[in-house]
């Protein structure tokens, strides 16, 4: 299911250990929410953007930007209205449209939202879900929660196909909207949708006891520790990456704050 977000590749971001990628994600996310000068802010953003370009290419990297473009326009239009401090840059009669404070805040919000969006996009684009869960396990995620995430991810395509099959079945039985396709009736459409969702829910809920029994049969709930199919790279092998990342963090922190 996560194949929609993960794209196979051989870039350095694809090869980077997922545990380090999680630390990078947190580190840069925090920087985007700190009050740092605008120039430094966009310098960090450029670093992330250029690194991401090598991993995905421009076309792919612009996809999340296209999704958030309407929101970026809204930020551009609405944010200056909330900031009247600083020099007046644009006015119409007595009405102040844009001030220096408003412009700075707008640019900061745009940079922040773009930066965070690209950070998460590139993380999910270059990290497989099983690697992500293994990394979370390394950082202390419990076996049960990891199991819940794994089952959820595996169940989504199944339930999606149940939903699609149910919609098709309802269409074949000529429900309200199949009979009068041109007419738009909200309450009838809502009722129609609810009957589809009820069928999906009953199918899903009935499967819970069966899934629970399957888990018990596979040994879930036993006292002995669970086995692992895959293991992550040892810390020894990861040492060069850790040292390199440490110096990179140090340089960025020095540049941003000093």
């Amino acid at each position: 299911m996560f194949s929609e977000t993960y794209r196979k590749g051989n870039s350095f971001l694809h090869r980077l250990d997922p545990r380090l990628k999680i630390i990078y994600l947190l580190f840069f996310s925090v920087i985007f929410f700190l009050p740092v000068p605008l120039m430094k802010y966009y310098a960090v953003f450029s670093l992330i953007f250029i690194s991401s370009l090598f991993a995905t290419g421009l076309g792919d990297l612009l996809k999340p930007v296209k999704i958030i473009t309407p929101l970026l326009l809204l930020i551009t239009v609405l944010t200056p209205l909330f900031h009247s401090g600083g020099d007046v840059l644009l006015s119409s009669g007595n009405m102040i449209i844009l001030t220096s404070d408003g412009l700075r805040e707008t640019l900061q919000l745009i940079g922040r939202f773009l930066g965070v969006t690209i950070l998460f996009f590139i993380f999910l684009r270059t990290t497989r879900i099983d690697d992500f869960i293994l990394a979370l396990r390394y950082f202390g995620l419990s076996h049960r929660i990891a199991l819940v995430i794994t089952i959820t991810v595996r169940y989504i395509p199944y339930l999606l196909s149940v939903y699609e099959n149910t919609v098709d079945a309802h269409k074949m039985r000529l429900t309200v909207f199949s009979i009068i396709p041109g007419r738009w009736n909200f309450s009838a459409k809502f009722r129609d949708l609810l009957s589809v969702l009820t069928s999906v829910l009953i199918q899903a809920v009935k499967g819970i006891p069966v899934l629970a029994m399957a888990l018990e049969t596979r040994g879930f709930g036993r006292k002995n520790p669970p086995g692992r199919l895959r293991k992550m790279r040892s810390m020894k092998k990861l040492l060069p990456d850790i040292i390199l990342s440490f110096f990179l963090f140090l340089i960025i922190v020095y540049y941003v704050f000093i």
Partner: protein
Amino acid sequence: MTDSDKFTNTAAFRVASIAVLSAIVAIFTIAVRIPVAPTRGYINLGDVAIFFAAFIFGPVTAFIAGGLGTAIADILGGFGQWAPISFVVHGLQGFIIGLVYNIILRKEEAGGKAGIFLQGLLPFVAGASVMVAGYFAAGIFMVGPGAAALEIPGNVFQNLAGVIGGISLAAAVKKAYPPVVKFRW
């Protein structure tokens, strides 16, 4: 305690119910979307599934399933940057709805009568307050107060659809599959 009560108390049952409900929340969020301009880009029926989970399965399942399901849906829908926020906000929303509904159920067990209106109104107010306030607070930091405020009407509408759909679905599923009433923990 009957055999089925014992069964619903097992860790395997709890893991299975949370996982299936998380998948349901994700499907409801992904499959049915009404596009809107502000912030997250679309109104969805994820809240219907969260209300359903809280009404049928209780606050803990609704907390994890609501948070995890919406976070996964955000990731799959290309809104990964909202996933941590969705996890916290929708998780808390599910938990609060479940808690309020627990109080109503206890009152009814003690002989009181809440009525269908109150059964829907109190969870709606509690759930909508948490969700709207949570997204607004997060939105202020992410996109600024102007864009964050534009999202409020959509979120209220989403909760309204959630409570209406959640109550209807809970009643329909209880009728079609009566053992589900024992799944609450």
